[in-house]
C-alpha cells in the first residue's frame, strides 16, 4: 500500500484531477442535456402556434382581455392599438400591437408573453403571434403586428379578466 507513496500519490492526484476537469465540463454539458429534456417534454414551446380543437363559441360568457406592452431596457415604442377587448370563449379574435425602433441602428428583438392570472395561460391559445419569431427592425421602422387567439371555453368560470402582457427583449447576439 505504501511501498512507493510519492509515486502512487501522484498517480492518484492525476486521476482526481481528471474527475475535477470532467465535472467542470459536466456543468456545461448539462445545458444541451437540459435543452433536450425541454424539447422532449415541450416545457418551453412558448413560440409555437397552439392548436384549437373545439371552436364552439360560448356566448354566455364574455372575457375581458387587457393588453399590456413592456420593453426590457430598449429605447423603442411598443403599445397595443386597443388596450382592452372583450371576447367570448371559443371566439377567434385578433389584436394589433405597434412597435417602433426609435434608434438609428437596425435592431432585433424577441417578445415574450406572460399572462395574468398565470393559470389562464394554458387556456389562452395563440394561433398567430409576432412573439413566435425574432423581429428585426431597420432604423426608425414602425410596424404593426397582430396576435390571433382563441380563449379556450374550458377556462375556469371564476376568470373574467385575462391580462396578456408582452415584453420585448433585444436579441443580444444581433447587436452591431
Amino acid at each position, binding site marked *: 500500500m505504501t511501498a512507493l507513496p510519492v509515486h502512487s500519490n501522484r498517480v492518484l492526484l492525476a486521476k482526481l484531477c481528471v474527475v475535477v*476537469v470532467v465535472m467542470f465540463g459536466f*456543468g456545461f454539458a448539462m445545458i444541451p442535456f437540459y435543452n433536450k429534456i425541454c424539447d422532449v417534454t415541450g416545457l418551453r414551446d412558448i413560440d409555437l402556434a397552439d392548436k384549437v380543437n373545439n371552436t364552439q363559441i360560448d356566448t354566455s360568457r364574455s372575457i375581458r382581455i387587457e393588453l399590456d406592452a413592456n420593453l426590457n431596457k430598449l429605447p423603442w415604442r411598443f403599445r397595443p392599438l386597443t388596450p382592452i377587448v372583450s371576447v367570448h370563449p371559443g371566439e377567434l379574435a385578433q389584436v394589433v400591437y405597434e412597435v417602433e425602433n426609435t434608434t438609428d441602428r437596425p435592431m432585433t428583438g424577441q417578445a415574450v408573453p406572460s399572462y395574468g392570472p398565470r393559470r389562464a395561460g394554458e387556456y389562452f391559445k395563440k394561433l398567430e403571434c409576432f412573439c413566435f419569431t425574432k423581429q428585426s427592425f431597420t432604423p426608425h421602422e414602425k410596424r404593426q403586428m397582430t396576435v390571433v387567439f382563441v380563449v379556450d371555453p374550458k377556462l375556469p368560470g371564476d376568470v373574467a379578466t385575462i391580462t396578456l402582457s408582452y415584453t420585448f427583449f433585444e436579441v443580444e447576439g444581433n447587436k452591431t
Partner: protein
Amino acid sequence: MSSIPHDHVAGHAHDDHAHHPSGIMRWITTTNHKDIGTLYLWFSMIMFLAGGVLALTIRTELFQPGLQIVDPEFFNSLTTLHGLIMIFGAIMPAAVGFANWQVPLMIGAPDMAFARMNNWSFWLLPFAATLLISSFLVPGGAAAGGWTMYAPLSVQAGMGMDFTIFAVHILGASSIMGAINIITTILNLRAPGMTLMKMPLFVWTWLITAYLLIAVMPVLAGAVTMLLTDRHFGTSFFNAAGGGDPVMFQHIFWFFGHPEVYIMILPSFGIVSTILPAFSRKPLFGYASMVYATGSIAILSFIVWAHHMFTVGMPAAGQVFFMYATMLIAVPTGVKVFNWVATMWKGSLTFETPMLFAIGFIFLFTMGGFTGLVLAITPVDIQLQDTYYVVAHFHYVLVAGSLFAFFGGIYYWLPKWSGRMYDETLGKWHFWLSMIFFNVTFFPMHFLGLAGMPRRIPDYATQFADWNMVASIGAFGFGLSQILFLYTVLKAIRFGPRAPARPWEGSDTLEWTLPSPVPYHTFETPPAVV
C-alpha cells in the same frame, strides 16, 4: 489549536524535529498538517464572527416591523453575504481544519500527502474572504440576490457580484485541492494494518465528503463562470433574450447545492460518531451500517437537487420523482440517528461538554431532518417555499447540526491539540446558553414560516411582530454565547491545566496514544494497528 508556539513539555523526544521558522513566517510557510489545521480553524472562527455580525444586523432590522436601521438593498446584501460567509468561510474551512488535524493522526500518517498544496489551499482563503467582504465597499454594494446567486438577478447585479464570483472561484479551488489532499492521504498513507473498514468513522465521513467536493465544486465553478461570461462576454447561458434560460441556472446550481449540504454535514456526522462512543464507553453501534449509510446519503444527494425548485414549473412526474427521492434520504439518515442512540443505550454515560454538544446535535439535527421531510412534500413545499419555515429548517441542520458538532469536536480534541484542558464549567455554560438561545432564535421561525412570512425581506406585516422580536432576542443571546466560546478556548490555551495524553477514558482512536500536546511531527514511523 494553539496560536502560540508550542510549549516544550519535558519528555518530548519528537520536539527535536520541530525546526520551523518562528513568528508570522512559521504560519505563512508551514506545510505541517497541524499548523494548517490550526490556521483553518482560526480562519473559520473569524469568518463565523463576521457572518454573525451580519446575522445580528439582520435580526436588529427585523426586531420590529418597519424599516429602521438599514436600506432594503443593503439588507439583501446582508442575507446574501451572511449565507456565503457562513457556508464557504466558516463551516467548510472548519471541517477542513478538523480533517487536517485529525485525519493524519487517526490513520497513523506522518502528514498530509501533498504538504505544499495543503499550504496553498489554506492561503487562498484569506484572499477569497477579503474579496467577498470588500464587495460591500464597491459601487452598488455587495451581491444582494441571495447566496444562491440566481439568474437573472445575478446577471444584472453590480460589481459586487463579480467580486462574489471570483471569491467563489478561489474558494472552490481551495476546497478541491483540500479534497484531493484528503483523499490521497486516506487512500495512500494509512498505517499498515489500518484497513478501510478499520478507519475511524470521522475518516470515513471525510473520505466521502472529499469525493463529493471534487464532484460538485467544479460544477459550481462552471455555473459561476457561465454567470461571468453572461455578464461580461456576451454569452446567453441564462439570458432569456439570447435564447438562454434562467431556470437552468437553478438546475446547475442545485446539482452542486444539494451535495453541498451533505459536504457540510457529513464531517459533523463523523465527529459525533467519534464523541458518542468515547463518553458512552461503548464502541460505536453498527459501524459498518454507518459507513454504508454515509455512502448512500452521498449517492442519493446527486438525484434530489430539484426539490429546491418545486415552484419553477416542472412537470408533475418530475415533482413526484424528486419528492420520493428526497424522502428516501431519510432512510440512511434514520439509520445513523438510530445507531447514535443505540450507541448510548445502556452505555456508561458521562456528560462532559463534547458529549453535551453531541447529544444536542442528535436532538436538534433530527428536528431539522423532520422539517426537511415536511419540505420534501411537494404540495407543502409550494406553500412554504421561501418562507421562514425554510430558514428554520436549514438553521436546525446547519447550526445545531454542523456547528454544534464542530463545537463538540473542538472541546473533545482541544486537550490533544493544545495540551491544555478547557474549563468544564465554562464549556457547560457555553453549551446550555447555545442550546437555549438557538431554540429561542430559530424555533419561532417555524411559526413565522407557517404563517406565511417570506424570507429575505427587511420589513413584515405586524402580525409577525411578536415572534420576530423573540427570534431577535434569541439571536443576540446566541451571538454573545459564542464570545463565551472564544473566551473559553483562549483561556484553555493560555491558562488551562495540563492535559494528560488520554483525558477521555472511553476514547480509543490513534491520536490518544500520542502525548498531549501532540508533538510537531508524529507517526514518522507508522504505528502498528491491530
